């Protein structure tokens, strides 16, 4: 996205523009034939503000005395000799439209993040989301992201990095205090109950509870096999980068036994990512109704455990174990 900087010609005023994000292109002067113009910001002596030294010079320029004596642009404009505020005609508008092929992108949710665990074979990467509860310490993911299943043990060093993006940890990281899952997963690797809830220590940039820091998803159980969901996760194989959130949207169905199935081609790394009902792209919140578990032969589909009384039982258990 290009920042458009309107040229303002007021003697003695210097513009200093901060570009949001890291990928914004330098705005270039352009012809004003259309009535639109943009230009690079300049210092009062006409040098372009495009180096660290120039930025520092602008910052130094604004001494308290200069700021106090700054010209009030609005006052000058409205009290000046400009044209009177007369409407040019009737108000007009053009309506926005959703893409007809479905949303091509969503905002990333800071409530969803990446999980790293130490497994006997090395480091495992999964996805997870903070889950609302009275004590505000829960994170929900897949059972196989916390425990190796039949014959195996719990994984160690579980951390949750909410909103992880391209190496950045916007709100820091949270370390698990204890991990919980269903006995059907830990004793029998039963994928019908491939679900887990981690109880987190205080952490992140505020040294606070995870739900106080990034909010928490709701939880729904016994809502039937056919529901509309948004699936979020960090796929890391088969061409997906692993450091950016991806999403799938669609309606689930009963894949096999007690599992929901959806069209979604996210790859390894997406395990544990939430299947959200009523996902709100503005708040990044919804109701968790499953988690990414596994797939069978078709690389365009995936399965998650159907959330019934088992998830409610696990939720109550984890919340009961949670420190205040």
């Amino acid at each position, binding site marked *: 996205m290009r920042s458009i900087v309107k040229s303002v010609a007021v003697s003695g005023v210097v513009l200093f523009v901060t570009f949001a994000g890291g990928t914004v292109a330098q705005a270039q002067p352009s012809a004003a034939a259309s009535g639109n113009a943009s230009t690079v910001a300049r210092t009062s002596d006409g040098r372009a503000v495009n180096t660290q030294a120039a930025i520092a010079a602008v910052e130094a320029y604004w001494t308290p005395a200069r700021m106090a004596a700054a010209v009030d642009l609005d006052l000058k404009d409205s009290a000046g000799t400009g044209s009177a505020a007369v409407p040019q005609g009737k108000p007009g508008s053009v309506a926005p439209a959703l893409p007809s092929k479905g949303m091509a992108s969503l905002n990333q949710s800071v409530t969803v993040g990446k999980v790293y665990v130490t497994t006997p074979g090395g480091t495992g990467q999964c996805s997870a989301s903070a889950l609302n509860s009275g004590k505000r310490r829960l994170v929900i993911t897949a059972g196989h992201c916390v425990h190796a299943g039949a*014959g195996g043990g719990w994984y160690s060093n579980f951390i949750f990095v909410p909103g992880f993006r391209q190496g950045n940890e916007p709100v820091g990281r949270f370390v698990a205090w204890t*991990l919980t899952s269903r006995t059907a997963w830990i004793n029998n690797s039963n994928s019908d109950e491939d679900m887990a809830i981690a109880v987190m220590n205080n952490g992140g940039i505020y040294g606070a509870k995870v739900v106080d820091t990034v909010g928490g998803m709701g939880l729904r159980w016994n809502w039937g096999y056919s529901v509309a969901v948004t699936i979020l996760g960090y796929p890391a194989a088969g061409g997906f980068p692993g450091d950016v959130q991806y999403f799938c949207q669609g309606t689930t169905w009963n894949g096999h036994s007690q599992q929901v199935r959806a069209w979604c081609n996210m790859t390894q790394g997406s395990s544990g990512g939430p299947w959200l009902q009523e996902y709100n792209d503005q708040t990044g919140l919804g109701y968790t109704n499953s988690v990414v578990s*596994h797939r069978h032969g078709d690389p365009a589909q995936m399965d998650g455990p159907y959330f019934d009384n088992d998830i409610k039982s696990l939720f109550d258990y984890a919340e009961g174990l949670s420190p205040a």
Partner: protein
Amino acid sequence: MPMTTRWWLLLTVVTTMTIAGCGSGSAAEGPAELTGRTFVTMGDKQQQDLPLVEGTRVRLAFRNGEVAAEAGCNHLTGKLTTEGDRLVVTEVGGTLMGCSPELTDQDDRVRRFLQDRPRWRLDGDTLLLSTDTARLRLVDLRSAEPDRPLTGVRWSLDTVVENGTASSVPAGADAYLMIEGDRVTGSTGCTRLEGSASVAGGTVSFPGLSTRRMPCAAQLKGWDSGVLELLRGPLSVRITGNRLVLTRGDGRGLQFTALSR
């Protein structure tokens, strides 16, 4: 003419049902000798064996008409039938955890090997699977990891079980039990334990357990009392390989792993 068509249709339906019935009754369930058993690779690598990342092993579990495989990263599963002396594994999928490139490649290697219709031969406890290019030698888990004795082993507590749910022992709690003769010693991380142990008929109880507090993290204190409560009353004993499960009558229990000495 319409009558003939209907008869053919009926005949086709009956034939199809018969074939399907045959399939699900025998071959579709995989070899009976393997069903219900779990096999693991051992460390003794030979040249023609499927290459494995150092320190990892392949675990194959055969269930009714399904095989589950693990090779250090994800849980792979596929439908299993047989064709002559070959295993036919189809619709292979797996869990979706991200791992190191080496382990992700190894998952793919094992997946391809299973999909390559390997020949199988069971020689006692040893299962040999071979394709034209590679082979896997596996041993029945029961032989590879014989059941450890209850006594004389330091059992490290890793799991607390309650009502179909389980939780890990919080980091920092070095909790364990060790039974020697008729004595038990142990710790919950916050409390030292000592007392007598009575082992009989697949159950164990710890009458007169004496406890002594020791310094520990504040967050462990509430957790500790739950564990102590579970150690009162008789517990059924189940040992599988290096895992010990102690279960109370109400289903609550503790799970341990044997620490190698």
